[in-house]
């Protein structure tokens, strides 16, 4: 991935709320098709940064490009080219699997035939053909989560943002979920993921760790472990957070 192009470029990002500095001079790049782990304790400023990258909130200062679009002026183009999944799974519980797919395909402006094509593809992929007319509320959590991820990449976004996507899910399902992430990355989709599970951090190509609004570490999991002289990402995180 030496020659890979950067799909997210952040230079000196600052976001202030009054006198409170939520993001203090962040600079980093994310490469195309990379799985980028965005770690940090609660309140470290992750959500603020993600909101800015998704075009939901304007930064106070800094140069930021997402999918080669500017976050100040081209938020509409950014929104069309990214997918987003939050810890709440973002599906509508009272409508069926298929209707959820149709709805999200619809608001991203996919054609009818393309929507049907994608639905057939995902239902087969997830082995959910028999459940296509079930209400989301009747499905187990693990299934909802996989469907939510499929919905988020339904419109072939360049980047997908996953905000703690595996909260409250059992280890086996988490494992399966990460297989889906790998496949998306293999297909050229950049994955920008936040998590509190440090074993998941090991799966990422590169990891950044935020502390008090700053990025205190950014490298591959191997290099970070070497740098801090510990044997797991968990210990890297604890070391940084305690300082």
């Amino acid at each position, binding site marked *: 991935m030496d020659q890979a192009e950067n799909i997210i470029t952040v230079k000196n990002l600052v976001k202030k709320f009054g006198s409170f500095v939520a993001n203090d001079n962040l600079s980093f790049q994310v490469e195309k098709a990379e799985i980028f782990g965005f770690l940090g304790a609660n309140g470290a400023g992750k959500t603020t940064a993600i909101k800015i990258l*998704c*075009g*939901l*909130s*304007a930064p106070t200062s800094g140069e930021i490009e997402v999918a080669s679009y500017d976050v100040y002026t081209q938020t*509409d183009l950014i*929104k*069309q080219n*990214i997918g*987003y*999944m*939050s*810890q*709440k*799974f*973002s*599906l*509508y*519980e*009272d*409508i069926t699997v298929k*209707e959820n797919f*149709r*709805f*999200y*395909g*619809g*608001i*991203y*402006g996919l054609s009818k035939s393309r929507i049907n094509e994608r639905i057939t593809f995902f239902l087969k992929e997830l082995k959910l053909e028999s459940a296509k007319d079930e*209400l989301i509320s009747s499905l187990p959590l693990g299934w909802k989560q996989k469907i939510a991820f499929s919905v988020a990449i339904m419109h072939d976004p360049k980047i997908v*943002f996953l905000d703690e996507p595996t909260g409250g899910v059992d280890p086996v399902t988490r494992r399966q979920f990460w297989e889906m992430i790998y496949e998306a990355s293999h297909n050229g989709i950049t994955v920008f993921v936040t998590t509190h599970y440090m074993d998941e951090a090991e799966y990422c190509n590169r990891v950044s760790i935020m502390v008090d609004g700053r990025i205190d570490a950014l490298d591959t999991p191997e290099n970070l472990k070497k740098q801090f002289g510990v044997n797991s990402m968990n210990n890297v995180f604890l070391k940084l957070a305690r300082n």
Partner: protein
Amino acid sequence: MNRFWAFVKKEFLHIFRDPRTILILFGMPIAQIMIFGYVVKNDIKNVKIAIYDKSKDNVTREITDKILSSGYFLLSEKLDSNNELERIFQKGEVKEIIVFEPDFAKRLENTNTANIQLIADASDANTANLIVNYTQAIIYEYVKSINENNSLAVQIVPEARMMYNEEMKSVYMFVPGTMALILLLISAMMTSISIAREKEMGTMEILLVSPLQPLQIIMGKVMPYIILSLVNAISIILLGFFVFDVPIHGSIILLMFETMLFIFLALSIGIFISTVSKSQQTAMFISIFSLMLPTMLLSGFIFPIKNMPLVLQWFCYIVPPKWFIIIIKDIMLKGTGLIYVWKETLILIGMIIFFISLSVKKFKIRLE
């Protein structure tokens, strides 16, 4: 545009998937109108009245005939002196006495104005109100019919007096009140709940991250309720008209226009409520306490505004249904046109602008 319709389709799915929502949307208006309607209908058949005609001319006779042939009233007796009024009411059978002033026809001819006094037994306040309203409606009808062939507009002034409950003066009609209540409930409460639900479930985030514009999101949420409210408004009017013979004297186009205006107002209130509430429960409680109760208590729907302490009367001025009820009553019952209700209409428009701009401001702050 296709994106927008995909959104609206989803909203309809939400509504039709939830039996409770359907019940509220369609069951409640019908139940309400039936309850109010039948209470009213049972009371206003063959009500016994007495007539004290001090003039005994052809006009008073004509009006008497009109009133008696309406089917609502039965003549119990004709009176000859004021002293009998008390005696009649105390017997309890007669509910209303109609008094024509002396020289009724002459006065009408000379000054174009004549007075009728309607005295009702208001110990049963609502019934008294209804009886007086019906009588007034018949008199207005008569005035209208003679004015059609007359270049000079003639005026007959029915002066209502409630015996045993003097202050009970406000007009009570169930259709405008029910309409205001139902439209406010459906448009404001349901939209505020459905927008709050997106926030509570976290799906609002996803919608904001999607290429949909905030305005499209709001319009998409509101669209189904515009349609459903309109269906409800029409069915209330039709039920009132066909089942309970509530007249529509004025222009139906104007009536629908004002109804749409009120629906928009209710929706803008709903949107505003949703901007200040984070959960469905909060939205529901705010709706009930700030909309339902004031509509029942302070709009003049059930309790007459003139009866209230002055401070509460001022408060009534900011209750939106008050103005809508005035408009609807004027159009349906008195047959007035826009020239008589333009002030109330402007107030509704002003309120819409107020709530929309407040919501936009709130929405922007939240996005920052």
